């Protein structure tokens, strides 16, 4: 007879594990990857490839030579970070900058803290913001995607994002309506399918939504953060829009343009850096939503998602402390 195994209960386990969750996220990102390759051509495949390999390499190297712990590169988390980092940069970013971004994401934001699950900030976003601040020129010149259904990829021309056009124009004193009437403006439909300038993973709302639905169905993410985030952003931007539609963009455009959908479903939901209790997640989502709109409307940057999420990441431990789950039997029932 074999030796018996002893352990405390429980003796059975759910079928989901970290690996299946992480690969689930990768699966959810596939539609967006296709859209970006369609619009930006092989360039975007190049960026994703470099970013993913660099992330995996740094994770491996740091674990092996610095932390000297167990090697866990195949748990999929570095893969997710790699793809998301790629999603957050323009498709024409030079290779070495992508590698710097990967080093920052994995080396500084993740492994310094001990690796998977211990990082207080979202690694991919730290990488992206680091790049944005270090290389503002390269990080803000986005190739213009080809028009929908045309065959050639116009990779040489760069131009602003939807939000960039609006911010620039509003600063110059134009009204929202004037800017949206302009012929170069992508418009709702293009923003939906992805025919807009932008980082390579954020352009197509539809592709991202498909992935998000997949993640929700597989219970990789819960509804709390996305709903709170998008909800508060819509309400806040809606109020501003009602106050003055010429100066403030309407909520629909806020949702479709820029990294909103990507951030709401893929980045704000990163488990390591977001609160744990449902209440906490709602507070976090609302905070991120408000900050995003504030930064977009009044800040120096046209896009506020990354910063808003990072700032809320900083608040996460405090939120965790303040918003505990409702305990069973917490309210003494007087009968």
């Amino acid at each position, binding site marked *: *007879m074999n030796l018996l195994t002893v352990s405390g209960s429980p003796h059975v386990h759910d079928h989901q594990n970290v690996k299946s969750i992480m690969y689930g996220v990768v699966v959810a990102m596939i539609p967006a990857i296709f859209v970006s390759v369609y619009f930006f051509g092989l360039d975007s495949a190049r960026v994703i490839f470099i970013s993913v390999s660099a992330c995996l390499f740094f994770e491996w190297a740091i674990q092996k030579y610095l932390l000297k712990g167990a090697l866990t590169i195949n748990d999929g988390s570095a893969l997710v970070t790699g793809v998301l980092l790629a999603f957050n940069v323009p498709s024409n970013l030079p290779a070495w900058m992508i590698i710097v971004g990967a080093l920052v994401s994995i080396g500084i934001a993740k492994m310094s803290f001990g690796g998977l699950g211990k990082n207080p900030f979202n690694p991919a976003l730290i990488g992206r913001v680091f790049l944005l601040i270090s290389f503002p020129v390269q990080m803000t010149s986005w190739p213009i995607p080809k028009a929908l259904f045309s065959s050639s990829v116009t990779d040489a021309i760069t131009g602003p994002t939807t939000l960039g056009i609006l911010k620039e124009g509003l600063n110059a004193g134009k009204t929202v309506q004037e800017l949206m009437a302009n012929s170069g403006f992508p418009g709702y439909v293009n923003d939906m399918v992805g025919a807009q300038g932008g980082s390579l993973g954020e352009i197509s709302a539809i592709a991202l939504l498909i992935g998000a639905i997949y993640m929700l169905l597989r219970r990789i993410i819960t509804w709390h953060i996305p709903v709170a985030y998008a909800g508060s952003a819509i309400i806040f931007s809606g109020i501003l829009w009602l106050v003055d539609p010429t100066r403030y963009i309407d909520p629909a455009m806020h949702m479709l343009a820029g990294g909103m959908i990507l951030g709401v479903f893929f980045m704000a939901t990163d488990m390591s850096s977001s609160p744990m209790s449902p209440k906490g997640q709602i507070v976090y989502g609302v905070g991120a939503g408000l900050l995003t709109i504030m930064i977009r409307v009044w800040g120096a940057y046209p896009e506020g998602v990354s910063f808003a999420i990072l700032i809320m990441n900083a608040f996460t431990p405090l939120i965790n402390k303040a918003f505990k789950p409702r305990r*069973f039997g917490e309210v003494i029932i007087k009968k």
Partner: protein
Amino acid sequence: MKTFKLGGIHPGENKLSAGAAIEILPLPTQVCIPVSQNLGAPSKVVVEKGAVIRTGQLIAKGEAFISSNVHSSVSGKVTKIDSVIDTSGYKRPAVYIDVEGDEWEESIDRSQDIISDIRLSREEIISRLNETGIVGLGGATFPSHVKLMIPEGKKAEYLLINGVECEPYLTSDHRLMLERGREMMIGVKILMKGLNVTKAYIGIERNKPDAIDHLLKISAEFPGIEIIPLKVKYPQGGEKQLIKAVLNREVPSGKLPIEVGCVVNNVGTALAVYEAVQKNKPLIDRVVTVTGKSLKKPSNLLVRIGTPVNQLIDFAGGLPEDTGKVINGGPMMGKALTSLEVPVVKGTSGILILPENESRRIPVINCIRCARCISVCPMGLEPVLLAQLSENQVYEAAEKEHILDCIECGSCQYTCPAGRPLLDYLRLGKNKVGVIIRNRGKK
């Protein structure tokens, strides 16, 4: 469909033995009866080595308030009074008896007749349960007569009968309700009388439709008893969850069900109560599920207390080749056994045999802070935090985070994708916090 709201999981049910009728396990040649089988103080042995005793004879007397009598489950000769490593893993004093024949005490009514009118008074019921050593068979083995003695100032309104059997694999309660429903219902009536309540609910999960139908059918004969079908969700069998599911009342943190006017008993307990009160039979046997995917014949067996576990396994087809783990109880709350010689005790509801490939935990990696453990915890705790605090030995903080509320259901560890040994650390923490609180009391 009624159920509790907070947390909960739905592990694979694997009720392999649900169709197997209860069989009587042949008498073993030797039994070993641990004399401390209930929650609470150990009992005092009242027989001597070499004594010849009968089935049902008292062998150990519970002397403290929370303790209970132990009776011989067989007739024969006491060969030694020593200790045995029992299912709890600890060495406990035990009486070893060599079986000779099956001579029962005369006072026990061994007929098959069902006696439905309850002749004893409330006080007599309580002392009868005390004499016959009835303890809760739902797992905690709390002496049943103590449960009937409602503390001063409290009042029981409802009796809840726990027919949930939410543990995967286990089917002993299921079979019992199906095959001995009527006796069980009389037991419920007795308990109602003992508690002086007029309303009882029997909660049963929907994965036992035949038991529900059967009890619904006969419940007409038992006014005041209502059958409540419940949605299948673990750990609905936990008494706090059951009360929430059935009555939507929440037992306050750190308090007992009586706080919200409830008393919870297991169906097996109800049957034992029937036998004790109507037939004067002490608790000397119980239904045990023996099951496992590789086991030839998953069964439900009526077993005498003290029978070694390996005899049950032999009866069910022998220990499979690929056995990796043998569990006393269900897969969620049971204890892994280190040896197959341990005796069946009053609290043994099942013997589960897991094959080698299912007996190891998944590899442990870093917590990814996914909060699944939080979302499944039926007590609304933060298992991840509590386990960390316990691992880092900051027990005072763990106490503040209500570690003692944990009912050790294991949902958190079941669901953790990183395979963290959450419940291990929670148990450890609870233990240490308990010690801290006791020491505080001393000062």
